[in-house]
């Protein structure tokens, strides 16, 4: 569902309920048969209002998703952060080539000589190395493959 939504890159003005919902529920939605009822009780509104607000925030691209957030590496597969050094005049073409791989999960343009940074997600490390080598060959760009060695922290709550 979320992947077909446009990626909003401008800031938005939020209603009071939208702001309270975002500030309170980035990580603590109760594992309860009626989670929206529990949220509604806490915020002093109806379950229907909570549900409508969530749908609206997702549709507007203010939220990218809502639900369980997985530490997917504990389940399955192999992951790495990779980078390419792409000549500016070929950037859009290379972005299309890289994004065309199903194994590319995120891809960001960054302000640096290593200007394209993406996460590869594959079944195993052998596939990961193959895809990485393939991307370097197809694009003709130098690459970095930087699988994590230690995770110190993943999280953060943003203030709406």
């Amino acid at each position, binding site marked *: 569902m979320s992947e077909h939504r446009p990626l909003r890159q401008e800031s938005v003005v939020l209603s009071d309920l939208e702001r309270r919902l975002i500030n309170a529920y980035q990580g603590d939605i109760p594992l309860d048969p009626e989670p929206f009822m529990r949220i509604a009780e806490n915020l002093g509104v109806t379950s229907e209002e909570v549900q409508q607000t969530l749908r609206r925030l997702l549709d507007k691209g203010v939220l990218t998703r809502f639900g369980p957030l997985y530490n997917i590496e504990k389940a399955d597969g192999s992951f790495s952060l990779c980078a390419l050094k792409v000549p500016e005049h070929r950037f859009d073409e290379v972005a299309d080539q890289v994004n065309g791989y199903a194994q590319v999960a995120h891809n960001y343009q960054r302000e640096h000589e290593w200007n394209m940074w993406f996460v590869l*997600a594959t079944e195993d490390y052998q596939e990961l190395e193959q895809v990485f080598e393939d991307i370097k060959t197809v694009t003709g760009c130098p690459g970095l493959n930087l699988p994590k060695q230690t995770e110190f922290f993943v999280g953060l709550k943003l203030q709406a």
Partner: protein
Amino acid sequence: MLDPVLVKKVIAATQNGLPICDRPYRTIAEEVGVDESELLVTMGKMLDQGLIRRIGLVPNHYALGYRYNLMTVWDVEDEHILQLGQHVGDLDFVSHCYQRPRQEPDWNYNLFAMVHGRTEPEVEQQVQIIRELLGSSCLAMTQLNSLKILKKTGLRIR
């Protein structure tokens, strides 16, 4: 013990998000072929084991005005990386913090910390706090501002 087949089904059914309805877990339970209470018990165990980090909503940084999303990278002396990396990860403005391998001579940075702010001075101050924390154990650093999201599908199992 968790049933790995059920776990995989639950991940597949929820990794794009929960349905927004009165009983979202009942909808998911029907999809994966268990009853609602068994699904809730299973997901509770997945939370306990850290397979589910949390259940919540994920804001788009940009929509909330966080325009400065910097990947800061640091060349930290290997003998101090584990201790110092943890201290950087504990800072409240750092969202992701990892040790990654150097790729000399192209890439000498081994500590990655993502920081987020609404203004340039705000992120500059964050960078300065990390710089002071690492002190003389840090040999070099650079920062890579994100200019554009080119693709974002999230990590998913297939």
